[in-house]
């Protein structure tokens, strides 16, 4: 295992807690993962609809950065993951797009590296057994609904993440940490983060549905991996309360934060205090803090 960490722009701006907890876990588990020196923003959500060549070239530059350090790529943000995988696909066979992209980048770039999401690496490379050994503070009796979001499993041929209809990677990580996992139908339903600015109402509807379904199925908190989902589900709960008259009070935590808790890491280091829906009362009630 020798990965270069590609945090992406969200982890460095709106989701610093994801970045911080990732680094904390890497450090705690002694993983050979280092942040890539020359990673580039993947241009997500705007670039690909503007210029296909430049959009692909951005991700190809990140691939090149990994080549320079002779490392495979570990990604945290599903959007970044989708785009570097797409770039790898483009480089894998000759096409006009490939030659245009390479011309834009200005050099030959090989794409023989492995590209994986951090949760996949923990799940099947580091392994559940070793994770279980590290758990000192089990998340006992905490009912967690894992919410994967729309991007990480789609399109399945490219992402190769898990069963696209019912992924279990985070569920298994959480149950390894001693949590009760909630089987619920909306694991990969879109939260509408993409329209959160342009059409907040649509986004609110979707977010409310997801939170309500999680709660109805017995979830006490939600475990996420995507910085946009986290933001959307966490930030909007107050608005939902006003609009739908239902108090949800469901903390939305990154799986890295929950793993950190189970490993006994300091809650402030895990930046639990940065969340909008305060998780401390729940965690205290469960005896986890």
């Amino acid at each position, binding site marked *: 295992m020798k990965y270069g960490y590609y945090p992406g722009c969200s982890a460095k701006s709106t989701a610093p807690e994801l970045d911080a907890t990732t680094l904390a876990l890497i450090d705690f588990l002694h993983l050979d993962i280092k942040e890539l020196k020359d990673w580039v923003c993947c241009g997500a959500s705007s670039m690909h609809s503007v210029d296909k060549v430049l959009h692909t070239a951005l991700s190809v530059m990140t691939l090149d950065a990994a080549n320079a350090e002779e490392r495979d790529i570990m990604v945290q943000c599903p959007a970044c993951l989708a785009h570097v995988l797409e770039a790898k696909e483009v480089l894998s066979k000759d096409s006009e797009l490939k030659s245009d992209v390479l011309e834009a980048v200005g050099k030959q770039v090989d794409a023989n590296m492995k590209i994986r999401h951090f949760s996949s690496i923990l799940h099947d490379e580091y392994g559940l057994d070793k994770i279980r050994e590290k758990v000192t503070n089990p998340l006992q009796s905490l009912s967690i609904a894992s919410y994967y979001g729309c991007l990480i499993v789609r399109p399945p041929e490219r992402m190769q993440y898990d*069963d*696209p*209809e*019912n992924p279990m990677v985070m569920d298994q990580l959480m149950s390894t940490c001693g949590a009760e996992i909630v*089987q619920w*139908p*909306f694991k990969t339903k879109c939260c509408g983060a993409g329209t959160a600015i342009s059409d907040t109402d649509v986004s609110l509807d979707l977010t409310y549905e997801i939170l309500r*379904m999680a709660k*109805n199925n017995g979830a006490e908190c939600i475990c996420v991996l995507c910085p946009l989902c986290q933001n959307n589900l966490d930030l909007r709960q107050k608005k939902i309360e006003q609009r739908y008259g239902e108090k949800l009070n469901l903390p939305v935590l990154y799986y890295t934060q929950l793993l950190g808790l189970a490993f006994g890491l300091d809650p402030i280091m895990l930046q639990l205090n940065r969340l909008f829906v305060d998780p401390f009362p729940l965690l205290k009630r469960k005896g986890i803090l």
Partner: protein
Amino acid sequence: MARIGVFVCWCGSNIAETVEVSKVAEVSKSIPGVVYSVDYKYMCSDPGQELVKNAIKEYKLTGVVVASCSPRMHEKTFRKAALEAGLNPYMLEMANIREQCSWVHNNMDEGTQKSIDLVRMMVEKVKRNKPLDDISIPVTKKAMVIGGGVTGIQAALDIASGGIPVVLVEKESSIGGKMSALDETFPTLDCSQCILTPKMVEVAQHPLVQIISYAEIEKLEGFVGNFKATIRKKARYVDVDACTGCGTCWQKCPVKVDSEFEQGLGKRKAIFIPFPQAIPSRPRIDAENCLKLTKDRCGICEKVCPTKAIHYDDKDEFMEVEVGAIVVATGYKIMPVSAFPEYGGGQYPDVVTSLQFERMVCASGPTLGDLKRPSDGKLPETVVFVKCVGSRDPEHYHSYCSKICCMYVAKQTMLYRHKVHHGNCYVFYIDVRSNGKNYEEFVRRAQEQEGAQYIRGRVSSIYKDGDDMVVEGADTLTNSQIKVKCDLVVLATAMEAPDGIKQLAQKLGIGYDQHGFLTEAHPKLRPVETATAGIFLAGCALSPRDIPDSVSEGSAAAAKVLGLLSKDTLDKEGVVAIVNELTCVGCQNCIRVCPYNAIELKDICNRQGELQRQVAHVNPGLCTGCGTCTPSCPSRSIELQGFRDTELYAEINALAEL
């Protein structure tokens, strides 16, 4: 010494307009071996044929070339004439100077020259032709039908009615197939059992039909007219002859397991008959669940059996049957809900297949016809039917249409509304395919009179929200997303080739497609035949189809069998491959390329019976005369008669002289 006659036809002006026929006849005389040539206005007419016949006799012709139209048109005509004049028909060849000369060229000189060339080629060929005898193979006047569903039953009945004995092999312990599990059938809504049971009884009582249930094909040897099948009779643990079907055993048996016949919605015992009308009405023991067979406990059935018919030490038995023809009617299976993770993957009891729904509404079903949803027994007030689940979905499942779902979903909406008059039912569909007699009217009735609400669009997901099932999909007519809360979801899942069908096809030496459905010899003109002579297909083994089509095909296959077995021998053209055993080295090239498995290794032994060497041997009954074997043979020890190298080379050589 060859004595060849050449007969040049004018075909009115069809040939004569572009070919100087008299010159062709004249020049032909100079070809070595030609002793007679003539041109005539219509060679295929009676006087024309007489001309050929008389010349054969008068000039003692050893070979004939008729230069006229395509052999595809009149080769049979002229060969028959030759035979009538005492000449072996294979000593007559045709030079195609109409379709491939006069009709495609304008220039008289070119047409004439080409005609002369074509005649010369055929003269050289026919000089080297050898007389061939047509092949006559004795046939076993008995047939085997594999599969005891309605298709197989129909085929067996029709064959037996024609006076040919039939062995009907069924892999389950009772015949009846899927149809026996249906409630009412479209488009007449008559009860399936009511129309099927009499047929089951009829076939069981037919003196020429032998039913072998709970059995499978182990091996098939031989060829058309002369098959030898080995049938594995699976251990039933019940002596079928001693058993009277009294039912004491299955009443007393303490083990309850999910009933396959009830689609998992009801229970059966470890010793059981699948359904009350089963034929034969003899139980079998399910060895995986029987306490005696798994743990050597219980043994109640043996104790209570009044006729001592239970034998726990029963073993699989093998029987051999010799048959002349085989009908494969192995049916289908339907995809289970668990195959569809987007629809819950089987985690929700209230998402069922259409076959489960049949059992839920059937008066003989596990609830005796009371419609209750599986999770809590509640009467479903709203039901959603989803069509094309697994069908017409090449990205994820099957590309094909399962053909019957449109009709049975319409039927099931009616069955539902007849039980729940106030109930709501919705049908998600791509389009409605109702092309059959009275089918369109039937669907319209469901929509217009019986209150089924059709929504054009596909369903993206199904999940449970509280007590309700929620179906999310698209309504492509209003171009909106749609969410339906309901109590029960019925999936019209795709019909698939049954398990084990590929292995069976390999044993029988017949083809199957990428879906596992068996392949017909020609999709239009030979729809119930296979590429293997003597093996026929019917029903859903070919692809999804409804009951009327399946039954028609059962009869069609039976007609083919009766046609084949109506004569004592099977006659076929003499154009088959033959091996020169002196030079064959047994390298197996021909065996490997033969599309019909018509060639096998034959041992050559000395007088002491010791194996000396192996050579190829052609079974003329199986050989279809394609000749693929010939070029594969490095020592040219296998030749296709009628198209031997020397004959074809003669044609090439004839061109050297031009």
